[in-house]
């Protein structure tokens, strides 16, 4: 095992539902520079427009994804909890957060370096394919949920 790797982080990644069954070598590779971060209620984890260089795995707690508009207060459009991921802007140029991420309660996350993941996915297309096969359904699900929100299903 790479001595630079934080073994606790490797364990947390390996046990996260998204990474279940992925190769140990891949997990150890993306765990380099990875760290656990702790937030309390109302801490800002990321701000819209800021550099997006992190993929967060939610271990405990709950975070809000907020949209900002100049003429109104921020609006929470989704909450994310344990077993889920936060952030894909690290994968999509120009790598800027598209929303705020705010802790709603005590929240424990693993932060993974987005640049390392990108380079790893490029260098090992087999890992890249496996990662995208898992990542795309999450994006599709969020797109579907956004469409349902647009339907205003509680409307008159």
């Amino acid at each position, binding site marked *: 095992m790479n001595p630079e790797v934080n073994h606790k982080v490797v364990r947390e990644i390996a046990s996260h539902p998204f990474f279940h069954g992925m190769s140990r070598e891949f997990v150890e590779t993306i765990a380099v520079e990875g760290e656990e971060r702790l937030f309390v209620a109302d801490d800002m984890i990321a701000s819209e427009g800021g550099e997006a260089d992190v993929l967060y795995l939610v271990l405990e707690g709950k975070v809000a994804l907020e949209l900002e508009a100049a003429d109104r207060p921020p609006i929470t459009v989704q909450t994310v909890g344990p077993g889920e991921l936060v952030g894909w802007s690290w994968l999509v140029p120009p790598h800027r957060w598209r929303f705020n991420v705010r802790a*709603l309660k005590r929240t424990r996350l693993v932060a993974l370096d987005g640049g390392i993941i990108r380079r790893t996915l490029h260098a090992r297309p087999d890992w890249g394919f496996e990662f995208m096969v898992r990542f795309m359904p999450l994006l599709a699900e969020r797109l579907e949920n956004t469409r349902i929100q647009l339907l*205003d*299903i509680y409307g008159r």
Partner: protein
Amino acid sequence: MAVSTLPDPASPADAGHPLAPIPYVVRAVATETPDIVTLTLVPRSTKRTGPFRPGQFNMLYAFGVGESAISISGGSPDGQLIHTVQSLGKVSNALTRLTPGDTVGVRGPYGRGWPVAEAKGRDLVIVAGGLGLPPLRPALYEIFRNREAYGRVEIIDGARTPKNLVFYDEVQGWRRRSDLRVQVTVDSAGRDWYGDVGVVTTRIPDARFDPERTTAFVCGPEIMMKLTAQALVARKVPAETIFLSMERNMKCAIGFCGHCQYQSSFICRDGPVLRYSAVQTLLNLKEV
């Protein structure tokens, strides 16, 4: 057709003509949201409507304006009735403007309600969207009274925003019970909301139940019920054990006039609670 052939609307014999409303007095008005109120009604005399079953509805008559079908959201053996009304049209607007002491006409109860007894021994998933909670409320209290007769009970309540949640304090009380799991979610919220945000269907994968022995009660706008039923079926709950409360424009409420016809059913007589398996294909049609 002669009046004498009209079906018995399940009202006591002293109610007289089945289409004649019985006068009730508004005892209290609680504002749930800016356009939704909960009315507590008591009979003005000894004449009262018959006992109701959870999921049934009454026809409320705003005198001089008209009648509207409103689900029963509570009541007591002494004849008290609770109705939650949203201002949507002329009649419901008049009903939401009632004040204590006003008189309103009531006839009913009508329709088939939630199969609360049939669900005994099974896990229950109860999903309410928007104004879907009031018609489920009597079923919930019946379940609470016989809690040991049921398996796991999961309640999911969704609304557009936190200010659109009805019976909010009551739901918060249910969240403190150890024998229920209550999830509340809204479509969007400001920074003063620390609960879940996301469509109601996103809570189904996280709900705890054994699909093979689960009965689901779903109530809300039709599109919400359709998407929720699809999410339940995706979790392997059989369509036969998912029940939806359908809504149509009702006039006579006794299966006579056809205003609420839904293909071969009359919602007032055969519903409003129907099995998802019976309406599954109809929910995909643009018009029925």
